[in-house]
């Protein structure tokens, strides 16, 4: 496996976690604050 290819796999893994965490954080804040 070339190093460059493994990097994109790790990047996609990180991106998915970031999207999930961002969505969760946003809507927990919205749910806690918006009247």
């Amino acid at each position, binding site marked *: 496996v070339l190093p460059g290819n493994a990097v994109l796999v790790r990047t*996609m893994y990180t991106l998915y976690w970031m999207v999930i965490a961002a969505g*969760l954080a946003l*809507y927990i804040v919205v*749910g806690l604050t*918006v009247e």
Partner: protein
Amino acid sequence: MRRALFENGLSICFGALFLITLCGQSLAGQRTHNAEQLAHGGDQVSWLDYVLSPSFGGAVMENWQSEFLQFSLFILATVWLVQKGSNESKPLDSVGLESKQKQRLEGFAPENAPRWAKSRGFARLVYENSLLTAMALVFFATWLAQSLNNWREFNAEQLAHDGATVSWARYLWEPDFWERTLQNWQSEFLAVGTMAIFTVYLRQRGSAESKPVGAPHEETGSSG
């Protein structure tokens, strides 16, 4: 670069589809919301205001939680439950956590195994359950987020109709919360059960989700 894209086709394709459909949902949702506002003499909201509203937040989170519940239960159930002939099932004689040799743990771990698979302590216990743990944590967090957003929306509607507002804890007992929750769960369970039993008799040539076309119906888990 082309090779790298090819090797990540599934995550890139579904990530892009997710972003496109989420944008579509927000645009369609804003229009619906504004049409209702117009009919009831309320204020129009911008796209950004709608995206940051409990109405959109609740709609997104209730679908997220049900998907993560689906996969959490599927991961857990397929350790202990089997379906004869299904591509979604392990072979019938592999029920349970399986041997260290079969799971390539400790001394059976190959040179390039994940570091924690080679360990013997708490780290390995965490790692050998990490997929279920991650999916279940996201499920509970998104379910919490859904409840908070649905609660805000519920109270806003109560106020608009001169009804009494309720606390978050009280809202968790409201039929409104359970209707929104269960309408998502039922569809996930039907889809999982359908996949478990349909893959016994039906095929898709070339798909990892199907047995090979020529595999006999009684063959269990031949590509899973």
